[in-house]
């Protein structure tokens, strides 16, 4: 068994370098395809992270009557916090609301209209952040039922739109990833098939001198694995070198996105290595099988 493994690995290594042009072409194709797959994965992960961020920004805002007592406010606040869909609750006083309004006007470079008013017309409010925009219903109901609540902003439209976009991106992303994956699979298997085809004579000689299927197949499978691993390592190398400038570009483009770079790069490494190795082995297995059926 050990000598068989030794033979297969030695032959795979020799086979790779003795047909260097074909092997390197297969490795280059593997690298390009894995980069395509990884690039697509990163974009998809970025979009979904952006979407999560947007969902977190969605708030149910309840404007409160000016005469709401502190104890009534605490009761309402606790009731809302107890809801599982609620991430956090923030109380904005009338003064704070006015300050926020002024800040936002000045940020937009517009006049502060509030200086024309004698009194502060803005109500105090409870700003409720949710985990998912789609779960706003029960929270809004509780707020509306409270006599101290003047008005609850209607986020039904916004929630529905976000949910639609989110579902579309998730489903579309998976479908597209599947399509890209299938194209990558097809191209890589065909490239490896070409590499094996170039060695048809060798396989024929092996068959004629009475080599068993395992002795014919495994060196090619190891060679396929080598092509896959090499392609994966090259891909990760390129991605690693490009990660910083790309990451900065993404942050600039999307403004501040809380992308968890660590977990994405771990996922991409697993994806690239797994896909490279898997496709290399599968491609070689399928290609050699054609010759073994007889």
């Amino acid at each position, binding site marked *: 068994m050990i*000598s068989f493994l030794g033979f297969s690995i030695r032959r795979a290594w020799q086979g790779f370098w003795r047909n260097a042009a074909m092997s390197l072409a297969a490795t280059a194709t593997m690298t390009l395809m894995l980069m395509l797959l990884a690039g697509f994965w990163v974009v998809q992960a970025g979009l979904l992270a952006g979407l999560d961020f947007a969902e977190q920004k969605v708030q149910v805002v309840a404007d409160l009557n000016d005469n709401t007592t502190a104890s009534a406010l605490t009761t309402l606040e606790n009731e809302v916090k107890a809801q599982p869909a609620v991430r956090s609750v923030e109380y904005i006083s009338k003064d704070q609301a006015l300050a926020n309004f002024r800040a936002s006007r000045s940020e937009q470079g517009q006049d502060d209209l509030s200086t024309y008013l004698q009194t502060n017309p803005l109500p105090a409010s409870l700003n409720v952040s949710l985990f998912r925009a789609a779960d706003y219903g029960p929270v809004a109901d509780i707020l509306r039922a409270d006599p101290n609540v003047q008005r609850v902003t209607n986020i039904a439209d916004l929630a529905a739109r976000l949910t639609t976009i989110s579902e579309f991106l998730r489903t579309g992303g998976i479908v597209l990833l599947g399509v890209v994956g299938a194209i990558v699979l097809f191209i890589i298997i065909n490239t490896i098939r070409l590499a094996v085809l170039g060695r048809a*004579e060798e396989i024929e000689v092996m068959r*004629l*001198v009475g*080599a*068993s299927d395992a*002795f014919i197949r495994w060196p090619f499978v190891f060679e396929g694995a080598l092509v896959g691993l090499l392609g994966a390592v090259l891909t990760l190398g390129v991605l690693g070198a490009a990660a910083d400038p790309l990451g900065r570009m993404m942050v600039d483009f999307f403004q501040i996105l809380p992308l968890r770079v660590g977990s994405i790069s771990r996922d991409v490494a697993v994806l690239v290595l797994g896909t490279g190795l898997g496709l290399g082995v599968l491609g070689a297995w399928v290609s050699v099988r054609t010759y073994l059926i007889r």
Partner: protein
Amino acid sequence: MTLAPFRNRRSAHAPDEASEGRAARRRTGPDGVERRRPVLVLNNVTKTYPNGRSALREVDLVVPEGDFVFLVGQSGAGKSTLIKLLIRDELATEGQVVLDGDDLARLARRKVPMVRRKVGIIFQDFKLLPTKTVRENIAFALEVTGTSHGRIGPAVERVLRLVGLTQQAGQYPSQLSGGEQQRTAIARALVHDPRIVIADEPTGNLDPLISWEILQLLLRINELGVTVLMATHDADVVTALRKRVVALEEGRVVRDEVGGGYHRTT
């Protein structure tokens, strides 16, 4: 005929079995005449390809151990198909092909390599691997059948000496003449110590002088006890040697005589 020297050498796979087996296989019949065990038996074999073309029709052939048989016939007569059946590259549509006691149609797929190791095959185009030296090409046949490293070296040196290529062992096929390439192919065919050597037009690509060299080598191998079946177009060779001649025409055996000439029957 002296059979012993080659077959008695220690084989890579079955050190002493070859010679002992041979002694046991030689039988004397009730009439006192020595009977040799058949290496190859074709029993009423027909091969029709899926496109309907009949390549072989009702072929009967028995080749006893130690025979030298010429297989002659024009292109398309069925020689190549017959050889494909013998190495189980194809299966007979009807009839039986028995090689060294194994019915090839009934053979489990995993046992096919074992049967192929009993056959040493030589082609017109040599089928040598260009990226391997002479020695590596020969050793390759043993490596891919799982022979231990310690046995490969001596077995390769033995066949290199037999075909006279010891000096050229480190050269690549592209550095060799046609005759040397074919001798390398013969050495590779012999390194397994096969029961039968099948040569498909082995001199087809060679000039007459080199062809005779190759033929001398095959005759020598036959004298050492290996059965040889050689498909050829070379009328001079067949007529001069007066060995057994099996002639195929349109897939049928039209002549099977010992000491015959090439004699096309057309």
